């Protein structure tokens, strides 16, 4: 009987010290989305990536000029805390489509910013068209 108590006490001690272990290494947020709102999310299973499409205020209130879109692409990784879930991991690229030049009859400005060794896509016009083709996700309470 005594041994049982001893064993229980030992288990209690171990679990206490366990709780005090420091946090797992949380990935820093490299892309600062402040001022931008999420328009939609796109998963590409072949490329093992997930991308979030953001828009500035003008992009959220159509029709309006000065809209800026940002497609932020991450590598998908296993969710360390739940088997059955992939989570966005390393930041791969941020693509920006700025609609401002359109008002002067020019094409939208496209910019590609690579992170962690990602290579630029071949064609700016194709990427711009693709980003513009993405449909917004349905969010509750957004003006429909």
């Amino acid at each position, binding site marked *: 009987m005594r041994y049982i108590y001893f064993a229980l006490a030992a288990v209690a001690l171990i679990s206490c010290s366990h709780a005090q272990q420091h946090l797992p290494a949380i990935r820093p947020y490299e892309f600062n989305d402040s001022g931008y709102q999420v328009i939609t999310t796109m998963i590409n299973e072949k490329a093992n990536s997930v991308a979030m499409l953001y828009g500035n205020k003008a992009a959220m209130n159509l029709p309006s000029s000065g809209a800026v879109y940002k497609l932020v692409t991450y590598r998908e990784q296993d969710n360390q805390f*739940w088997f059955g879930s992939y989570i966005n991991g390393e930041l791969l690229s941020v693509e920006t489509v700025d609609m401002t030049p359109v008002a002067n009859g020019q094409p939208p400005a496209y910019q590609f910013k690579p992170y962690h060794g990602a290579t630029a896509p071949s064609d700016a016009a194709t990427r711009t068209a693709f980003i513009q083709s*993405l449909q917004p996700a349905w*969010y509750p*309470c957004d003006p429909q």
Partner: protein
Amino acid sequence: MKTSRFLKIALLTTGALTMAVAAISFTTQVVENPPITGEINAPEEVKQLFRHACYDCHSNNTQLAWYDKLPVVAGLVRKDVETARQHLNFSEWDRLTPAQQQSALWEAYNMINSGTMPLPSYAALHGNAKVTREELSGLRNYLNTKRVKVVPDSVKTAQTRQQWEKDQLPVSVNGIRHMPEFRQWQVMSTTSRFDNTTMRVMFANPVAMQAIKEKKINPWPDGAVIVKVVWEKSIDANGNIHPGKFLNIQYMVRDAKRYQDTDGWGYAKFETPALKPYGSTPMTFRECSSCHRAASKTGGIFDLSTLN
């Protein structure tokens, strides 16, 4: 000789009758006494009152007198006890919520005070069921300790204000309201489930985001709010997966004291585009918190990207 024979017959008859009555009263089970799940908790004098005046009908400890077991009478008694237990059962007090217990006590006082309870027909026959003046004032004194005062409550204040607003936002039974302002918050993460067919985006309010940056998330600070939006996956001709049908929006609101029953997080879920609040009582959300213990290393939050 003649008289003695007469007496004999008389004696025999009464004897037989008495035995018959006795047999009925010992053998007939007028009402069953189901197990006691949780007795009322009150000062002894209050419990004493209920025990002698009410327990024969309002408890699982019914003790009937022999005359309650007589044929015909037994049927009436059984009916009374069964209805009485349905209305109020001091032996199953634990089945009532604190609010229900409170209102049952005040109702009991007023029933006795007005002479409605114990049932007068019963009290007339059962002398010991009568409630004395002293006992009744003892119950009144006890109730005086249970008067409720209105205290400032931010949730209730918000609800009061809200009923005047044009676009009413749905509120969960535990007081958590849907917060459309989450659309301005930062994205915490996005997940793709392969144990089901959903995809999610998590948003963190400024308090939560700050806590992540400062690595102060075990425990998370009060005021942290994390939102999760869940959609069905929808795949296009090129194999890209997009958010399809909106399923629900879920909240975790940190207030270590208010939500101590659910490990310091208040949980809420609003389903379908109509945002129907999920859960009928605050207890519902224990199911959320018990599963979220699997994320205890990160203070109950699963969806944080780690450096692998």
